[in-house]
């Protein structure tokens, strides 16, 4: 184990030695891959099937970064691992509030824009994202259902936002939180997935795609990004569903609902979900769940967009206006 313990400044010297060590002992040790930063170096532990990142660069920040990340792995208390955020502000340090005080088009409730101001880790409250998106796995694939409302504070900026981002023909990403953040990073993810395909001559797995996204945004943790997304797809292991957010969470699961209307959606889904449902029933369940969420949540509305991910990729099932769904369900009563 001691072979892994190194400080950043020795990375370049120990480069080759390090990799050899990894190679020969990777079957015996089980560690975590942690790519810390692209600007700084990378503190590397191996997972015995993963690729190894090693970027020997000489910079002081890198040292600091490596040490801190190393400390976290070795079990010491994880303190304030914050990047040097000077590059964000061109003026004096009293401007912490400035970039976030503007009304950005976002799915977040207004309070969420102030998240960058809070330096205290304890005080950080989980802000809701003003939207409802959900996805669940069942026998015949994954159903993804989203609403289409975007709010800037209390103003509804748009009722026709596409909150499902088509990364590639078999991978979908949903959007909750800051609209620009979600669409930018998921577009970047699409590019990374394509590069992976070209390099490895096979499609990227859902786990790997979600990991790429999580690692990309983790570098900006604490800087005010707001993103809560679900990466859904079908790969050789079957249907895949991961929840990734800007706090650094990456969770695999069978059912997720994200946003301010998520509680309402959970209620509907939990009461109706069975693994052996037909595709029709599953779509109807997803649609109903989003509709109920828009009914009770002021920050969700517009249309319900529904996608189904199956072995051959994803299909756009339907787009229904919430008002029309309301009439439809009223008649059924």
């Amino acid at each position, binding site marked *: 184990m001691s072979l892994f313990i190194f400080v950043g400044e020795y990375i370049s010297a120990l480069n080759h030695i390090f990799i050899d060590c990894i190679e020969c002992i990777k079957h015996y040790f089980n560690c975590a891959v942690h790519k810390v930063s692209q600007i700084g170096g990378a503190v590397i532990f191996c997972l015995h099937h993963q690729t190894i990142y090693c970027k020997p660069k000489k910079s002081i920040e890198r040292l600091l970064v490596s040490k801190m990340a190393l400390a976290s792995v070795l079990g010491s208390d994880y303190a304030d691992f914050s990047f040097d955020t000077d590059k964000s*502000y061109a003026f004096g340090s009293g401007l912490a509030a400035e970039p976030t005080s*503007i009304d*950005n088009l976002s799915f977040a409730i207004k309070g969420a824009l102030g998240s960058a101001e809070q330096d205290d880790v304890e005080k950080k409250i989980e802000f809701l994202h003003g939207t409802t998106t959900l996805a669940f796995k069942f026998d015949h694939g994954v159903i993804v259902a989203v609403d289409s409302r975007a709010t800037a504070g209390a103003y509804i900026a748009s009722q026709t*936002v*596409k909150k499902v981002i088509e990364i590639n023909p078999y991978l979908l990403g949903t959007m909750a939180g800051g609209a*620009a953040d979600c669409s930018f990073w998921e577009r970047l993810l699409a590019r990374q997935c394509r590069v992976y395909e070209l390099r490895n001559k096979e499609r990227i797995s859902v786990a790997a795609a979600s990991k790429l996204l999580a690692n990309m945004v983790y570098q900006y943790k604490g800087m005010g990004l707001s993103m809560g997304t679900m990466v859904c797809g079908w790969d050789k292991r079957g249907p895949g569903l991961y929840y990734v957010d800007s706090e650094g969470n990456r969770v695999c699961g069978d059912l997720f609902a994200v946003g301010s209307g998520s509680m309402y959606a959970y209620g509907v889904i939990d009461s109706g979900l069975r693994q052996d449902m037909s595709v029709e029933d599953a779509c109807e369940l997803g649609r109903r769940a989003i509709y109920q969420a828009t009914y009770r949540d002021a920050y969700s509305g517009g249309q319900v967009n529904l996608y189904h991910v199956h072995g051959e990729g994803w299909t756009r099932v339907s787009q229904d206006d919430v008002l029309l769904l309301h009439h439809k369900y009223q008649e059924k009563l």
Partner: protein
Amino acid sequence: MISAQSFGENGKMKDYHHTGPVEYRFSPYTFNGGTVLAVAGEDFAIVASDTRLSEGYSIHSRDSPKCYKLTDTTVIGCSGFHGDCLTLTKIIDARLKMYKHSNNKMMTSGAIAAMLSTILYGRRFFPYYVYNIIGGLDEHGKGAVYSFDPVGSYQRDTYKAGGSASAMLQPLLDNQIGFKNMTGVEHVPLSKDKAVQLVKDVFISAAERDVYTGDALQILGIFVDTNEIPRLQFLCIYQADHWQEVSLPGGGLDDCAFTFSLRIKINVGSIFLLVIWIHVQ
């Protein structure tokens, strides 16, 4: 003018008339007002803006239009912080030139929109305080409107209002162009003349109720001509308050049109830009 925000005891911003200790902090941003609006039709697009430039209680200029021509088929309207508007349009122009030189063709509206999104997101942590709306014709000749937020989130729309009076204009456009919240109405597709008239009326309403909007209205239209000969046409500025026509001299095409002595590009068999400033009787 140095812009500052004053903060009271509890850290929140104070009103203009205040008593007690006040902390002044330098702010790199200021709000210069202005409203922009874009409408896309079947084969045309219209981008309009008011021409008032204000700051706080003052008006810096009554003749500061917010629409900028990017290419023959695309116009951008920028409102918000004027300094960032100017810089952003300079950056976009430079990037357009670079694209033209590397790829030997002009950028399409969709490409400009995607590029602007990445330019804006590049400043995610110190944003351009600009509300952009791009209006133009896409590569198929259909009208296209792309609306942005200050950090680069964008989508394609049929119509969009942005800027200080956007919350007042958008519902009106929803009703008149989108036929929202109306039952039993025939969805007539928008004609060019009706669109221009609608834009004028809508701006009058905005100027009535928003202090930052007023003085004059600049309308730019992007059309496909029947003769397919591109021309830049200036008519005149429509001033909501004073009903004055400011027309520019030149040879006439009809009693309302004057050709302006700008460069005329002849582009056979394709789409072009007509800049029209509407004369109102």
